[in-house]
């Protein structure tokens, strides 16, 4: 827990970085009212290396959110194993933090208090906590909104708070469950840029679930394409477009087109 997120420059080489998260033959079935089980995930195996930005892309109902819930420890798999730095994980913990799609901030706490929430109970004196909170409040651009309540700020700002309150805990893996899906196009773009900015700065490992091809191509080092019934990995696509990525380049469009055709 004491490991700090290191600041890594642009010379990152994910292929040689150590594996942080390993998913081994993971399956999930839900009992149904009729006879038999509904298979949601079937034999998912994949690895995430330190500092990688991986998008899990698939249509709704392909089990990608279920996978994220299992990784977070909110739900046990039917079979298979999740390893973090080699150790099997089963319960939720601050080494795998989630940014939810829906508003999951504590409505009775201010922006600052929400961001500080996970630090409480850590061996850290008050002054240091306050400095950390200050740092992350300003990293997500909410310096002027520290004392606002969640109900007083916009959806985009809420997601900024959601990001800050987990990044401050320096998780090994950041799990994001369609975090920007509910935002308007312009805000979503701002948030994508913010995510990339923070990722450059803090170089955490990100697993980002989305159904938006453009979003995945903009963000990802790798796109894991899911298909449904049962949910499984169809393809593992490396996106080697240079960063920062421009949405108007031919390379970007080409990737979007080819992945869109894969998804059909």
């Amino acid at each position: 827990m004491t490991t700090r997120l290191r600041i890594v420059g642009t010379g990152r080489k994910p292929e040689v970085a150590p594996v942080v998260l390993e998913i081994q033959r993971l399956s999930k079935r839900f009992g149904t009212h009729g006879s038999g089980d509904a298979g949601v995930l079937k034999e998912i195996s994949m690895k995430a290396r330190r500092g990688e930005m991986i998008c899990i892309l698939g249509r709704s109902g392909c089990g990608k959110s279920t996978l994220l819930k299992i990784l977070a420890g909110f739900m046990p798999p039917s079979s298979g194993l999740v390893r973090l730095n080699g150790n099997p994980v089963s319960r939720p913990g601050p080494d795998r933090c989630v940014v939810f799609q829906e508003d999951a901030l504590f409505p009775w706490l201010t922006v600052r208090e929400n961001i500080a929430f996970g630090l409480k109970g850590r061996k850290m004196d008050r002054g240091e906590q306050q400095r950390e909170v200050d740092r992350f409040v300003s990293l997500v651009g909410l310096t002027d909104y520290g004392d606002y309540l969640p109900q007083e700020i916009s959806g985009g700002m809420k997601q900024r708070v959601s990001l800050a309150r987990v990044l401050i805990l320096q998780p090994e893996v950041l799990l994001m469950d369609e975090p920007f899906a509910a935002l308007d196009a312009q805000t979503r773009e701002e948030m994508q840029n913010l995510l990339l900015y923070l990722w450059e700065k803090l170089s955490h490992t990100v697993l980002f679930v989305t159904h938006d091809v453009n979003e995945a191509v903009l963000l990802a080092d790798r796109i894991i394409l899911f298909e449904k019934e049962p949910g499984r990995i169809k393809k593992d696509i490396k996106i080697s477009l240079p960063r920062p990525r421009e949405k108007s380049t031919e390379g970007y469009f080409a990737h979007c087109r080819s992945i869109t055709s894969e998804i059909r």
Partner: protein
Amino acid sequence: MNRLNSTSGRLNRLLPWFLPVVSFLSWFAVSESGMVPTYLLPHPKDVLAAASTYIFSEAGQGSHAGRFFEDLTASTIRVMSGFGLAVVVGIPLGIVSGRVALVNGMLGMTVNALRAVPGISWLPLAMVWFGIGLKTTVFLVALAAFFPIYLNAEAGARQVSPILLQAGAMMGVNRLRGTFAILIPAAMPHIITGLRLGMGISWAYLVLGELTGVSNGLGAVIMDARMLGRIDIIVVGIILIALIGRLCDLGLHQLLRLSFKSARRMP
């Protein structure tokens, strides 16, 4: 815009007084006209005189003179003991019951069956068990206040969004801290509703407990006055209980708002 706000603000402050003032004026008008005999409805000025004697005079200067503060103290102690007991039992039990299906399964049916029993049916039993006075009253108040407090705490705890608890768990919050830092604050609006309902019903059952021949207390005064045919004192008692009940409600709400962020910051 600003002026509009301030006028509507003033209106909102005055609005609650509309009904009391209208009631009082019509009462006054009816009494002045002499349409209703005073043994059915005493004149407001008689009631005011009785109230002033009851509250401010020295003991011995007329019936019930100067008894108010003694009665108020006795009644307040009974209400607060009963209400406190209901809070101490009702809130923890409600919260556990809202989160643990086993506990809810065990308690749910019994609580709902007992809830259907009117409080007044407990009175004879309570008198046999506890005699007349403090204990019977406290028992009745505690029993009556328990149900709204328990049921609302239970509903509040049950309806806490699982995503808030998941968020806590992923941030490394353990069960104990989760209960106090997430579960209870998130259930706070329901808990407050339960406490306010419980406080209101406490005063109702206080009077019931005191009607049985207790020597002091606001309920006892009303019963006493009935035996003496002092309808003006009865009305004084009713109005005083309404005022004190309202003050208790305000005080309780204010206290909760002072003590808990969640009570202050959530509607």
